[in-house]
């Protein structure tokens, strides 16, 4: 039985999973909008669909490119990619450490 509405608690968990953080005003606004959207999509569940209707991943039957040959084609300017980073050290991208990876010890 799926919840009819997203509660504040569910919402906050979702925000955390999404790697976001919101202030009070944003939270309330977005949660309201989310619930409105859920109401709008509610009708989807009531549409009767035959067993044999398959999901459409793309609207048309995509006849695209076959897999490519296994040939090395180096990108001409990897430095340009590194140069985009907000912080680098030498040739590395830098991030702060991850809190929950510190050992719990045995």
């Amino acid at each position, binding site marked *: 039985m799926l919840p009819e509405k997203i509660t504040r608690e569910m919402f906050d968990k979702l925000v955390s999973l999404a790697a976001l953080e919101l202030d009070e005003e944003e939270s309330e606004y977005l949660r309201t909008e989310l619930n409105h959207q859920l109401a709008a999509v509610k009708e989807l569940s009531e549409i009767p669909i035959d067993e044999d209707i398959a999901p*459409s991943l793309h609207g*048309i039957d995509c006849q695209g490119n076959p897999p490519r040959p296994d040939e090395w084609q180096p990108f001409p300017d990897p430095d340009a990619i590194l140069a985009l980073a907000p912080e680098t050290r030498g040739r590395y991208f830098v*991030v702060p450490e991850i809190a929950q990876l510190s050992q719990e010890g045995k």
Partner: protein
Amino acid sequence: MNSTALSALEIARRVRAGELSASQVLEEHLAQITAVDGISGQLDPPALTPLEEQKVHAFIQVTADLARLQAEQVEAKLTHGEDPGPLAGVPVSIKDIFCVQGTTTTAGSRILYNFRPPYTATTVARLEQAGALILGKTNLDEFTYGSSSESSAFQPHPNNPWNTQHVTGGSSGGSAAAVAAHETPLSLGTDTGGSIRQPSAFCGVVGLKPTYGRTSRYGLIAFGSSLDCPGPLARTVSDAALMLQVLAGNDPKDSTSAIQPVPDYLAALAEGVRGLRIGISPDYDHIAYPDTKTGEMGIQAIQPEMNQAVREVAQVLASLGAEIVENVPMPNARHGIPTYFVISRVEAASNLHRFDGVKYGYRTQKPVQDLTELYRVTRAEGFGLQPKLRILMGMYVSAAAHSAHYYQKALRVRSLIRADFERAFDPSGPYRLDALLTPTTPTTAFRRKEVLGDSVLMQYSDQMTVGANHAGIPAISIPAGLDKQGLPIGVQFFGNDFREDLILRVAYAYEQATLQADWRQVIPQALRTAEVK
């Protein structure tokens, strides 16, 4: 005659014939931008004067230097007797969702405010190779999320040149406005739920969403990967055809890029509509709209002038020899927006995962304890409300516990929507249509701030267009009049897979038959108040 009054076809013809220099074309269009556009969209805009409030603000970035280099190249080619390309000297603007080396590509978002891609989108590269002059990046809804272009982090957002108190529509609002205001004759936009067609309708220009896969998505910052289509905006149908000719075709860098051959769109244009079957559907003369408290779907009338325009267009086409097929049922049209809410959000949420402040773009300046906090604060500060809303919705409906109920179901409803079109276009079916005629939008351009904030209402602006994205089929919006307020009315033709040629042909026939219509002689407000030399 100032080249800003010319079509792209005519500019290219004159430049290639040596009658007009690319540099002159460029400078005249830059002057037009100066005259009508006002300040460009920016992160920390100043307060706007009343005069600025009446400007178009189509651009985030004007790339005059880049364009000048391109104009020189066109001229050099001509001097050396080389072919400068089918778009030689034609100014084009690019929705700022396309990566273009040598420009910043912001996606209308703070989180990419300084992103300078080391590569160029395939569609833009093709325009460049065809001799086009890239004049600038147009403003848009943030990450293309919206139908009014108001949500951009770069303000002021674009204004509708017909009445600057009204929105351009979105998300290719800057593109539609730039074309309508004669700043560029062509613009490259994207259409995920209607984002080319709806602003085209609002701004009185031609906008085409090609078949999915017809134009390459490589270099397009993704919203809904299974829905996004790059496409042309122009003031005339033949200009749209010309631009599509350059854009269309397989790209090895895009696995979903179609392998179907590209026909000659211009050649087929003038073949007329005699004997073509053009359908009208009762399911497209109203919208199904939900009660946001209960989820109950109700019927809502659309602006009466929209249905009237459809009837008038049908009459014109009938007088040209087309067969109008009434009462074509499209029973699943009503499910278009709910389905879109689910599918596009799931893809969007995932596509936005990569914006984390580590590799490029914005990173918070606040001191953070650890990586998780870096992600959260960067994304919180970098994203506006619309991306946040889409991320949350997308994550919710794709959560393991909900996925079958929402996402898997939506994919199957999508098949039903597709089936409606298949039945309509089936050459051995009951309707055997060459095109389906509908209004493009439920209303003409609404006022600024009128809808922003109501995410459901905003999305429903796309109810008439979104079916083409679900089904993957092509669709074109063309101007079909002005409403009582003087705002543009657009009508739409849906076509079968890879039959852009047919819908262009139908649109062209209508356009040519109504060239002298009074409403086509009206000049948009922003052009009246500007000093155009």
